[in-house]
């Protein structure tokens, strides 16, 4: 990763391009998730009571722990960036590993939650059952719940892979660490929006 690709004049140009590329990519991602958030708003306006009832069936304890875990991981990835700027390669690696590990814990807890949802028949279109008065909106709620958290989990898996790859191959390159960190922060921010929308609807 230390060389300059032939299309670039110098290292600075190459680094700036990588940064800008990531920002543009994140702009695409915002719009991608944005549709789901928009549909969520429309549907919640349509079924306010059902969404409140459905939200009470999410596991707020696990959701809150997971929020804390992701926030911590954003902190550790920031520490990794800081370490790489100080040229502390081993420290950078260590913080990247911690970040990936936190991501993995998040996924494990999320998996546990999915299992609970499964045993409570909360998976839409798959033996879904809910109190009759709120079933219709609740099914939409859980469809969006699985769509958003599922898509988020996919992004987190990619994030973990990216962080581990950087730890192995590019911990020396502070710009690679920074660009990877940008992506990680984005995945984190998506969750910051998901958490209140899915877990805290009727608990405010």
């Amino acid at each position: 990763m230390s060389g300059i690709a032939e299309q670039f004049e110098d290292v600075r140009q190459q680094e700036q391009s990588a940064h800008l590329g990531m920002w543009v990519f994140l702009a695409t991602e915002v719009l991608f998730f944005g549709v789901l958030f928009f549909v969520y708003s429309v549907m919640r306006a349509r079924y306010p009571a059902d969404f409140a009832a459905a939200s009470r069936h999410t596991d707020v304890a696990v959701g809150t722990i997971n929020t804390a875990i992701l926030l911590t991981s954003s902190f550790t990835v920031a520490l990794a960036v800081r370490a790489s700027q100080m040229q502390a390669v081993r420290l950078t690696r260590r913080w990247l590993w911690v970040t990936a590990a936190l991501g993995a814990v998040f996924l494990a807890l999320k998996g546990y939650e999915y299992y609970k949802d499964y045993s409570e028949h909360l998976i839409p279109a798959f033996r879904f059952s809910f109190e009759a008065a709120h079933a219709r909106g609740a099914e939409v709620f859980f469809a969006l719940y699985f769509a958003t958290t599922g898509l988020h989990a996919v992004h987190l898996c990619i994030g973990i892979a990216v962080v581990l790859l950087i730890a192995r191959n590019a911990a020396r390159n502070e710009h690679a660490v920074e660009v990877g960190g940008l992506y990680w922060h984005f995945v984190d921010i998506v969750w910051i929006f998901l958490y209140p929308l899915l877990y805290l609807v009727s608990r405010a």
Partner: protein
Amino acid sequence: MNTIAAPLLPPSERPDSYLSAGYSVRSWLLTHDHKRIAILFAVSITLLFFVGGTAAALIRIELITPAGDLVSAETYNKLFTMHGVIMVWFFLIPSIPATLGNFLIPLMIGARDLAFPRLNLLSWYLYLAGAVVTIGALLAGGVDTGWTFYTPFSTLFSNTYVIAAVAGVFIVGFSSILTGLNIIVTVHELRAPGMTWFRLPLFVWAIYATSVILVLATPVLAMTLSLMAFERIFRIGIFDPQLGGDPLLFQHLFWFYSHPAVYIMVLPGMGVVSEIITCFARKRIFGYRMMAYAILAIAVIGFLVWGHHMFVSGQSVYAGMVFSVLSYLVAIPSAIKVFNWTATLYKGSIHFEAPMLYTLGFVGLFMLGGLTGLFLAALALDVHLTDTYFVIAHFHYIMVGGTVLAYLGGIHYWWPKITGRLYSDAWARFAAILIFAGFNLTFFPQYLLGVAGMPRRYHEYAPEFQVLHVLSSAGASVLALGFLLPPVYLLWSLRRGEHATANPWNASGLEWRTSSPPPQENFKEIPVVTGPPYDYSPQEGDSMFGQEARELGASASRS
């Protein structure tokens, strides 16, 4: 443009070009060179253009008579769906950005490649994968939803291969996003020394604005189609009212992408035309800054007018009014562009080689398409005209009269640069005139059909509409002939055409300051830019240009 440039090489001293950098299949399929990837794109979208065109030809033959006698209603519906899906996502959207844009952006800004060459190659493979999936779905049994995939028809009622077709569109969407991302970063970061924003050719501005739309609008389509597929598979009520959903929600999300997509299709065409019209009028573009701002204004306001597709859909009357007034606002920058092109001709020294004929055709047809857009933006009139042939005629004037003519004009203009060969200008001019005539005969009658109330997507129709339909089909056969000509004489030129000099049109952009075809690294030495673009002067005398033009004519008579 005043540049410290690589020396203009005489044709005898042919340097290594990107085409001679390797002849194996592998050297093409694994290339990172933006110029080769552009050619891969050009070949694939041309193939798909003719697939989509075949569907259109069958549609026009069917419509010669009022009865549905050539194909069944199911087949007809699949044909127009296939025509729409292929032409929109596999031809129009990638057409200029992924071919001419890909090839020329680095050359025009004085860079050695796009910022992310591997991403560029991936973009082509995604395009290919999307095309295989979609064409597979269309061949396996077809899709009958129309390219708009309106719910609840697409989610609960159609028994065709909706999911597969949508999957293909989803994949090709990522191809668009990657191309857009690549171009945005390239234009921001890789400009040559001295190439400030307001020294960029308008083509670069146009492709840049297009890329911004690609990056911001395409993900919305991808997610909307995913939700639609989700509803179709799992019966979750998001769009279907029977399941508790809202069908207008789909239309809002779909047009939030698909209206900006119109500008994805036409802005690059405006860029091409701005390059050609200045070169062939030997004049600076009139109002360069205004043109650049107009491009940006179109890109931005284009995001706010999607609701004008829904004036009779059941959205509120007041929403309709807001979308109508915004639609008139977006028409202003488009009008400015037409005025500026016309003013550029004033006191020029105008040459009429094939690229200029395509360009003049573009200006006229785009203007007619744009002016009829004013009818559709007028609320009460749209109530009568929407979903009739008037709309079909309107957007074909923009998409075919506009984008396709600009694409062909651009291909003819940069052909010597891309291939290093000169084609027969006489044949090219003949094709341009044929396409222009055939196009008008095909689509002008459709305006009249629309005003008279002929609905779109009709397999059978009331007998009083027949005369106009026959005229339209007759025009379509002329148009088809016109479209078949360029591949023939252009391919011919690859073997038999004269070798082109570095700058056969005596044009001013950086892309003409390197050899034809360019070397793999684009420039022997990165040029330094010291002045604004379009450094043309009508007083220069046209000796050089004339000489080159004669050469073109001579090669025509020899081939």
